[in-house]
């Protein structure tokens, strides 16, 4: 039994060499498709950077009622700070408002009128991450309902557009990865099928000599898995190299950082083994 298992294992390895040409074709296909998948995964992992940037620009302006005192305003601001979506709140007191009015229109409104007509307000900044999609409507409503709050203004439609657009991109990316993964499995399994098709005489001969199905299948399946693993390793190291290079040369303004970890490598490995197994199993079963 041990002799048989070791024979089959060695056969699997040797087949790689025996079928150099076809094997290298499969390996190349695996490499290309896994490389593509790897790139997509990395893009996916990094797709939060742009949206986080935009989120850091989201601003909600809260205007307090005219008769709220600065102290009352402070309490309301504390309440706003407690919402999970809120990153920070910048208070603009009634005095600050007068200064800003003067900066903008060149007139000192208090001097002219003898009193300050401008209300206090606050700028609410939104948390950039931790949310798949930030939906500000409920937050706005809650702030609106706080005692002492007059009006809440925000770039409503623009933000919800951006969020929706971002969501679409993410979905597109997910679908693409799925499609490419499927395409990969099919293309690779077809390539392995062709590899095995070139061996149909051999399979027939083995059958005539009294080989069991297992005895014929196992070396081919092992060969398929080995091919996939080699292809996946090549893809992994290429991506790794590109990532290193990319981190050097990527324009800093895009703040794109690439996360690549052990899990990514292990993931590729598992995908490749699964692809190799399914591909070669399907293929060899066709001729048995």
């Amino acid at each position, binding site marked *: 039994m041990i*002799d*048989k298992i070791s024979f089959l294992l060695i056969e699997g390895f040797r087949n790689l060499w025996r079928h150099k040409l076809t094997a290298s074709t499969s390996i190349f296909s695996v490499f290309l498709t896994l490389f593509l998948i790897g790139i997509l995964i990395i893009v996916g992992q990094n797709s939060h950077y742009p949206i986080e940037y935009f989120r850091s620009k989201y601003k909600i302006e809260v205007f307090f009622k005219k008769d709220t005192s600065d102290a009352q305003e402070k309490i309301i601001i504390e309440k706003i700070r407690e919402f999970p979506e809120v990153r920070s709140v910048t208070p603009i007191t009634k005095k600050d408002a007068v200064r800003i009015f003067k900066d903008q229109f060149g007139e000192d409104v208090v001097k002219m009128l003898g009193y300050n007509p401008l209300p206090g307000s606050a700028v609410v900044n939104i948390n950039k991450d931790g949310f798949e999609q930030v939906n500000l409507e409920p937050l706005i409503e809650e702030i609106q309902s706080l005692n002492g709050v007059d009006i809440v203004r925000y770039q409503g439609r623009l933000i919800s557009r951006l969020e929706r657009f971002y969501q679409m991109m993410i979905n597109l990316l997910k679908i693409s990865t799925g499609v490419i993964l499927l395409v990969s499995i099919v293309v690779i399994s077809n390539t392995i099928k062709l590899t095995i098709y070139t*061996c149909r005489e051999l399979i027939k001969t083995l059958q005539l*000599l009294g080989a069991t199905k297992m005895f014929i299948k196992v070396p081919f399946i092992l060969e398929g898995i080995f091919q996939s693993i080699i292809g996946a390793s090549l893809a992994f190291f290429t991506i790794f190299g590109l990532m290193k290079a990319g981190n050097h040369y990527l324009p800093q303004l895009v703040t794109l950082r690439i996360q690549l970890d052990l899990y990514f490598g292990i993931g590729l490995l598992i995908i490749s083994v699964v692809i190799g197994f399914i591909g070669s199993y399907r293929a060899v079963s066709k001729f048995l």
Partner: protein
Amino acid sequence: MLFFYSISIGNLEKSQVGFFTVIAFNGVSYFFSKEIGVKDVNFEISQDEFAFLIGPTGSGKTTIMRLIYMDLMPDEGFVTVGGISSNKIKKRKIPMVRRKIGMVFQDYHLLSDRNIFENVALPLHMVGIRRDEVRERVMNMLNELNIEEKEKKKPFELSGGEQQRVCIARALVKEPEVILADEPTGNLDPVAAHDLIKLLENVNNEGTAVFMVSHNYNLIKNRGHRILEIQMGEIQNQ
């Protein structure tokens, strides 16, 4: 037809089927298409017999062989090989039947991506024999057939006769219960052909049945072996 006549030396009785009989055809017919194939074939080969099958080209000799190693299944009747009947066997048990048989194919069926040693060793690996024992048995067999120096060559690097001998070595190396040889001398010169028959006779003397197809009547006559003749898919006066 002057060249073909048959000598019957087997005096077996039906009751011996299954014990002394290694191959038995019982009313077997197989048709590739109407008129083409073999029809109502009945014969038996006993455990220690050496029998020839002779007949013109296209008469159905290879078809008989394929029925024995269950590459084809009879349309009528049944074939029994080593006690296993074609009408009862499960498909996944067929390899077990084939392992009892040493086959020399008319078209060799050598694996082109392996060298001669590996080709001959294959049937031994299939049944899980130890590496060193495999080496010993294969090299002995290659020696016996004078192709030991071709050990490392690929099949396409061999002459027709050498390939044929590799195929014979592969059939003999597993020490089967019965040897089927389909035209094993077609590419051998008279000396090599004569040596092969001698070799098969030795193997037969050690208790292995041999069933061989041949056109070369001169080679097989006057050897005291049974000769079956087939014409147009039908076994003649057995």
